[in-house]
C-alpha cells in the first residue's frame, strides 16, 4: 500500500502496461519529453524510448487516424487527446473509423485502442478545457467508455482498458488528478467484467448515481444527509458504456429513489439514459421519478461562473429532498 494521486496512479498503470505488453504505444501532443500537460505520461519516454512514447504534430484527427493504422498493423495504441474539447476534431476518426473497423472488417482487425481524454470541469480552465463528452461517446456502437473516480480505480480501469480488445474512451476527471489515496497496485484485482458499477457508499433512502468527479460530490452530499439521518447510497457508474443496468436496478430496487448527477448539459445527457434504464427496470418500485442534477444547457462557462454551472451540493441536496418528499400527483 502506498499513496498515489490519480495522476500518479494513471502514470503507473501506463508504465506497467508498457512493461507487460511491448505492443503498447503511447502518443499524443506533448506526451513525450514534457510528460503531458498533466504529467500523466511523465518519465515514460525516458523509460521506454521515443519509439514507444512519442509526440505527434498538433492534429487530433491525425492522431486517431494513426492509431487506427497502428492497430491494423497489430499494435496497441494508447493515444491522448490533450483536453476533452479537442476530441471534437477527432470525432470523425473515432466514430467512423475507430468504432467501426472491427465491424467493417468482419472481425479481421481488432481495434484495441485506449483513448485517454483529460475530461470534465472544475479547474477554472479556458474555453474547451472542461467538457463532458460521455453522452456522445456512449451513443456510438463499437465504443466502450469508462471514467475512474479514484486513484485505485484509475489504475485498475486503465490497465483493464488497455488490455481490452475493443476501443475504450478513457475519461480522466482532471479536477481529481491531484487527490491522493492509498492503494496497492500489486494487489490481485477481482476480475471485474467491463460494465460493472461500484457502490461507493451504501445507503437505503435513495441512490445517487454519478461518475468521475461527481462521485466525490455525491459522497459529500451523502455525508451531509447522514447528519439528518438520511442514508444515501452512492453508485459510481464507472463504465458509461456498457452501463451496469443490473447493478443500478439492484440498488434502486432497495432504495426506491434515484438521483443521477453529471457535469454535462441536461438535454440528451447520459443522465437521460441512466434514468430511462432505471425507470424501465424499477417502474413498479420507484416512489418518485428519477431526478437529474446536471450542468445546464449552456456552453461550459468561464471560471467566474463555473460554480454556478456545476451541480453543487445544494442542488443535489434539493433533488434528494424532492425525491424523498415526492407524492404521486
Amino acid at each position, binding site marked *: 500500500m502506498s499513496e498515489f494521486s490519480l495522476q500518479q496512479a494513471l502514470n503507473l498503470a501506463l508504465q506497467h502496461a508498457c512493461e507487460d505488453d511491448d505492443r503498447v504505444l503511447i502518443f499524443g501532443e506533448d506526451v513525450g519529453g514534457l510528460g503531458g500537460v498533466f504529467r500523466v505520461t511523465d518519465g515514460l519516454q525516458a523509460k521506454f524510448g521515443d519509439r514507444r512514447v512519442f509526440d505527434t504534430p498538433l492534429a487530433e484527427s491525425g492522431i486517431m487516424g494513426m492509431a*487506427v493504422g497502428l492497430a491494423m*498493423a497489430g499494435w496497441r495504441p494508447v493515444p491522448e487527446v490533450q483536453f476533452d474539447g479537442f476530441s471534437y476534431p477527432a470525432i470523425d476518426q473515432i466514430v467512423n*473509423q475507430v468504432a467501426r473497423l472491427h*465491424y*467493417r472488417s468482419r472481425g479481421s482487425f481488432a481495434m484495441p485502442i485506449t483513448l485517454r481524454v483529460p475530461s470534465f470541469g472544475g479547474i477554472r480552465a479556458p474555453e474547451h478545457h472542461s467538457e463532458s463528452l460521455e453522452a456522445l461517446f456512449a451513443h456510438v456502437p463499437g465504443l466502450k467508455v469508462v471514467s475512474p473516480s479514484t486513484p485505485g480505480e484509475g489504475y485498475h480501469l486503465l490497465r483493464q482498458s488497455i488490455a481490452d480488445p475493443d476501443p475504450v474512451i478513457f475519461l480522466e476527471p482532471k479536477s481529481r488528478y491531484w487527490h491522493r489515496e492509498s492503494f496497492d497496485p500489486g494487489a490481485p484485482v477481482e476480475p471485474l467484467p467491463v460494465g460493472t458499477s461500484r457502490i461507493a457508499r451504501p445507503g437505503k433512502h435513495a441512490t445517487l448515481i454519478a461518475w468521475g468527479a461527481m462521485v466525490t460530490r455525491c459522497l459529500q452530499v451523502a455525508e451531509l444527509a447522514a447528519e439528518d439521518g438520511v442514508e444515501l447510497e452512492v453508485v459510481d457508474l464507472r463504465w458509461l458504456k456498457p452501463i451496469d443496468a443490473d447493478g443500478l436496478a439492484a440498488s434502486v430496487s432497495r432504495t426506491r429513489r434515484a438521483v443521477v448527477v453529471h457535469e454535462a448539459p441536461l438535454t440528451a445527457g447520459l443522465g437521460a439514459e441512466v434514468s430511462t434504464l432505471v425507470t424501465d427496470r424499477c417502474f413498479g418500485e420507484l416512489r418518485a421519478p428519477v431526478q437529474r442534477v446536471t450542468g445546464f444547457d449552456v456552453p461550459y462557462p468561464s471560471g467566474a461562473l463555473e460554480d454556478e454551472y456545476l451541480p453543487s451540493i445544494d442542488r443535489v441536496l434539493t433533488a434528494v429532498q424532492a425525491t424523498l418528499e415526492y407524492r404521486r400527483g
Partner: protein
Amino acid sequence: MDLPELHRLMLVARRIDEEAIAMQRQGELPGYAPMKGQEAAQVGSAAALDLTRDFAFPNYRDLGAAVAMGVDLVGYLSTHLGTWHGGMYDPQASRLAPVNAVVGGAVPHAVGWAMGARLDGTGGVAITYFGDGASSQGDVHEALNFAAVYRLPVIFFCQNNGWAISVPAERQVAGGSVAARAAGYGIEGVRVDGNDVLAVFEATSEALCRGRDGGGPTVIEAMTYRMGPHSTSDDPGRYRTLEEEREWAERDPVARAAANLPAEVVAEAEAHAAQVVRQVREGLIATGERPAGELFSFVYREPTKALLDQQRGSHV
C-alpha cells in the same frame, strides 16, 4: 510485371466494371461506383506492391487495385451488393483494407500502418488511394504532415480523375496539382500519366524503393479520367460535356495498352476476362441472404451483455 500481364489485369477490371453496371441496370446490384478509365492508375500501382509485406488502403472506386492484388472479387463487390459495407474478402490475407467510404478518411490509417511496419522492421510500405476531391480534406493534410515528420514508408496515391462528383479538379485543387503539394512537406511528389500503365508501375516501384530505403513518403498524382458516371445514380450530363468525354475516350488506358500488344495476346486476355466475369457474376448472384443475427456480430470482439439482450429481443 510486363505490359501483357498489366493489360490482362486491366482488361479484367474493365470487364468486371462493365458487368457491375449491367447488373445494376438489371436490378441485381443496388448501386455501383464505376472506375472505367482508371484501370492503368489502379492496376499499375497495385501490381507493383509486394504482397508479402506491403498493404493498400482503398476507397470505394478501386476495383482495379483489387484485381491486381488478386482479391476475391465476389467478396470485393459484395459491398455494392449490400451484403457487408467493408466487403466480404479477407483484408488481412488480401493486403487490402476494407472498402472505406469516407472521402480521405483512410489516408491517415496508411500512416499509422506504415509506422507499425517500420517498428516491426518488415520493410513494408503502405499505399493509400484517394481522389482529387479527397485532397481537400483536412485528414489528408494531417496524414501528409505526420508521414513527412516521421519519414514513414507511405505512398499517397492520388487518382486525379478530373472530377469529384460534379466539381472539376480546377475548382477543387487550388494550385492545380496535388503532387505539387508534396514540396511544402519536404517530400517527393510526382505527377504521372495515369493512363500509361507502365509509367504508373514505374513511378510506384520507385516510391516503394524510397519507402523501403527509409527515404520517406511519396505523393504520386496519376492524371486520369473517370469515363463513367460518379455512381450508377449520377448523371454526368448535368456537369460535363460530351466533347470532354470523347477526348478522354481517345486516351482510354486499356485500348492504349492493347494497341502495343499482339492481337492474339489481347484476344486471349479477352477470353480470360470473360471467364472471370462469368465466375464473378455467378458468385454475386449466388450470394444468399445474410444469416439472422449477423447484424449483431463484430460490434465488439465479444458481444456485451447489453447487446446480447438487444439481440434476444428483451429490448424490442
